[in-house]
């Protein structure tokens, strides 16, 4: 079971309270987790990754286990603690500053 934490706006869009728990087949990577997330919540397509290129949207970051994984390749395995469900995979909106 993979745990995913989304920013508030995306939780509202998907009608979620709290974190998402996903069954993900095969290797646990950014790509496989986001594929599973978008399959269950199709309204999230295009809001985290570009529809066509599947690249992360510029103002979002991917964190887990106190690491910034945003620049990792999409098929790089996520940390074992994420794969084991001990730690969540976090989608984080960049702060606006000010």
């Amino acid at each position, binding site marked *: 079971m993979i745990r995913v934490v989304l*920013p508030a706006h*995306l939780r509202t869009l998907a009608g979620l309270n709290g974190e998402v728990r996903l069954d993900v087949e095969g290797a646990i990577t950014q790509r496989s987790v986001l594929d599973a997330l978008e399959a269950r919540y199709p309204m999230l397509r295009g809001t985290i990754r570009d529809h066509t290129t599947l690249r992360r949207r510029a103002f979002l970051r991917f964190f887990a286990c106190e690491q910034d994984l945003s620049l990792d390749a999409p098929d790089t395995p996520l940390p074992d603690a994420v794969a084991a469900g001990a730690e969540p995979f976090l989608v984080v909106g960049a702060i606006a500053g000010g």
Partner: protein
Amino acid sequence: MSSVRLLVGTRKGAFILTSDGKRENWDVTGPHFAGWEIYHVKGSPVDPNRLYASQCSGWFGQLIQRSDNGGKTWEPVGNQFSYDGVPGTHQWYDGTQHPWEFKRVWHLEPSLTDPDTVYAGAEDAGLFRTVDAGVSWHELSGLRKHGSGPTWAPGAGGMGLHTILLDPSDPNRIFIAISAAGAFRSDDAGETWRPINRGLRSAHIPDVDAETGHCVHRIALHPSRPDVLFMQKHWDVMRTDNAGESWREISGNLPTDFGFPIDVHAHEPDTIYVVPIKSDAEHFPLDGKLRVYRSRTGGDEWEALTNGLPQSDCYVNVLREAMDVDTLDSCGVYFGTTGGQVYASADSGDTWSAIVRDLPAVLSVEVQTLL
């Protein structure tokens, strides 16, 4: 009894304002999509309870929302806007060529005959259409592939397709306008396009009367006379009597002819409204006085409408999409400001009052007259 519904898009959500035909007391609901930029909300002329909203965010991109019950509930629909084929390039600020990149939908224009068909005007300038109520969107790429496309350039506010006018007398005729490429017309339902900018003169481009490159801010028409178009350009208020074949200036006695919105009275095709703004460098009303100007002569002769509008210390702007009229017997006129006020007049502009004062900056105002 008749009623009026205002669909207001703001920097931080959508609001729906409703009143009966007297237009004295208003009910405000919202924010819908709180925290998101709502560039435009518009209802189908065929089914007024079918609404479409353009919802976007720098973080999460573009969403399109649809309501089938007049805005009580909403459903996200398709949000994939892909340019047709190899997107190609247009001119960038530094003069180099830059790939076409989708950024957001500025304007949604539902079909006059089919509630499932909607046109979307996008930044970077492109025209999209859905025929399945927003589930999928496809580009009408004949516009972007017009021969002048690679010369189009964004203004400071981006290169947005912001005006879409469907000719009620000819289903094949569509007018659109782009900042800063100009106005274009299709006579074959959007397959092919040609620029309609003859008569425009713009000091911000090297060739002041070029075929394209003009920063058109808004175009409006009266449905009874669709060959007559009124334009608020970056500077200059313009008019054409031949569907854009040629334009002439009608700024007349306006105190400044810079501005964004322009609209036409519901029952008087020669009565038009603009909101003069001091200049392109100072986007607020001249002398701190918020004045709508009305011409009852199709231009050239203008009168200031001030009754009920702030006449001192007012430094808001009124954006291009933020004015509309209702179609009740006594025509109502409405506009929203970047200060969050929505002003209404139930008597064609003679008197005004703020029906709400403290919304986020207003991006768009659309009016539905419900019978």
